[in-house]
């Protein structure tokens, strides 16, 4: 198991945002977390990448308990994340944003940079433009490209389709598939359940801080309850 989360609880102040979530992500998989706003999807990702402290439970990565490891070291260990709202550095150029992804790396970057530009030709065109002036879709590309530059073993994607036009959404999901094909494990949080489930090997359904269901992606797609709740109910 590449990534294992064991019964984690997370609190904001006294409010429990996550009340005992366990999930597993195997090497090479695409795993989705779906659920309504406020179900705890984003918090789960932030907990994995070390942005939120655990109240209890364990995060195991590559066989090592990383529950107490600071966030920046988790990046070095191989957890990359494209955060919710993209988190693009507005005052940095596209290139600088991508280089930030390679912040901890000491090896040669050129090949990886070229690969990102190949995945996102749009970014190559706008190398020297400031991140803050890019459109939503372009920012999403920066965020994903930047996360790839950390050379992650597992890539955490938080709502990559948010605010994007349908055309772009399809494109982003294609790219996620491609990234996965090239050997990166993906843990995906999505509102757009339909698309996400189609893509995923497995998925977990979250509700008010708990896992209520887990199954292979296509299976959930046909689950009447899931359809009712997240897919428009018909």
């Amino acid at each position, binding site marked *: 198991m590449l990534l294992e989360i064991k019964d984690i609880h997370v*609190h*904001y*102040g006294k409010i429990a945002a996550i009340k005992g979530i366990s999930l597993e992500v195997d090497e090479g998989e695409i795993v989705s977390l779906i659920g309504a706003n406020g179900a705890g999807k984003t918090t789960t990702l932030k907990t994995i990448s070390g*942005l939120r*402290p655990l109240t209890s439970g364990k995060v195991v990565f590559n066989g090592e308990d990383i529950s*107490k490891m600071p*966030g920046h070291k988790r990046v070095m260990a191989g957890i990359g994340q494209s955060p919710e709202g993209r988190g693009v550095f507005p005052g940095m150029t596209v290139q600088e944003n991508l280089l930030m992804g390679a912040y901890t790396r000491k090896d040669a970057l050129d090949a990886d940079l070229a690969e990102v530009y190949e995945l996102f030709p749009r970014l190559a065109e706008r190398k020297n433009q400031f991140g803050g002036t890019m459109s*939503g879709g372009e920012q999403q590309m920066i965020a994903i490209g930047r996360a790839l530059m950390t050379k992650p073993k597992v890539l955490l994607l938080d709502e990559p389709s948010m605010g994007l036009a349908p055309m772009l959404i399809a494109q982003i999901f294609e790219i996620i598939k491609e990234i996965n094909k090239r050997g990166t494990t993906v843990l995906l949080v999505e509102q757009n359940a339909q698309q996400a489930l189609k893509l995923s090997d497995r998925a977990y359904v979250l509700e008010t801080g708990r896992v209520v269901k887990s199954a292979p992606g296509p299976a959930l797609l046909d689950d009447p309850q899931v359809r009712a709740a997240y897919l428009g109910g018909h």
Partner: protein
Amino acid sequence: MKGNGVTGNANPLRRVGALVDGARDWWEHAKAWQRYLVYLGAVVFALILPAPAIGSFMSPGADWTSVLIYPIGTYILLAVGLNVVVGQAGLLDLGFVAFFAIGGYSVAYFGTQYGWNYWATVAFGIILAAVSGVILGAPTLRLRGDYLAIVTLGFGEIVRITANNTDEIGGARGITNVPHPTDIPGVVEFGLLPAPYYYLILIAIVLVIIFSVRLQKSRVGRAWAAIREDEDAAELMGVPTFKFKLLAFAIGAMIGGLAGGIYAGKAVFIEPNTFPFILSATILAAVVLGGAGNLPGVILGAFVIAWLPERFREVNWLKDVLDRDPAEYRILLFGGVLVLMMALRPEGLLPSRRRRAELHEGTGGMGTMGAEVAGPDTDVTTTEAAK
């Protein structure tokens, strides 16, 4: 990385905190007569506080009653006033001393130049302070917290320097022979003895506390609390935030002005250097050290900050150890204690529960410092705007 919920142990201050919590629980469930008894006790205590028996321990080096008036009483009065601004409305004010100065100068100037009745000059000083609070606040309260801090700091300095350079109000020479408070025939005579001034300042403190508590429990106090917690949400719930922030500024200023008036009447002589920036910082430190927003805490903080350095002058064994007057070290110690206290008990000695919670979440109305892990507050408007 230590989580919010994960608490360290072996911190003696925490045990004190538990004790305080116990007292607070008792207080919340206390019967009316029990509370009355406590109020009565507090008042009786305050009345007999100047007794020489207490003074010989509290202040062996200087006259206890005088010390009770200045710095202790004056600091408490100022701290209660600043608490309205910082603790209740959550606005950072680094120039509070300006209002203290305005109150003091108005008593001194109108008393000596025009021979106004003392009480009239105090009242006028309070009004003047409130007006300057509004004048300062109106253009600046729209600024963000830190800008407000530096602008208020600048205002404090402007007032002091202007007083220093304006001959009409004595310039650097200050104003001498400020009249004492007018006697109240048959009741009290204000001369050079400190006792009447102590009771005067005590009455002022009591009145200001009543004022402050009543505000806190009213619509006004609720509005301030709402502004402190989430200014945008407050505005959207119909709170005219700007008006209420201005009100907090004006009320804080009035209390500062009152303190200045009383001070000038006792001191007989005031000069611009009586009102340095460091006094603003000290009062702010008192408010925060005591526990911003919680009156007993603020009073305790002001008392400690005013009294400790005085007391420290007279620690004889320290004199022997250091071979120097320990008084010299008191500011050094004061600074060190501030750093230490903030590290060990950032919420202050006696924080209000609400305030402590805010601080623990790192959302105390003024945002957090970029901690390793950012706080849970996300600004909706800005993230929305980015979409």
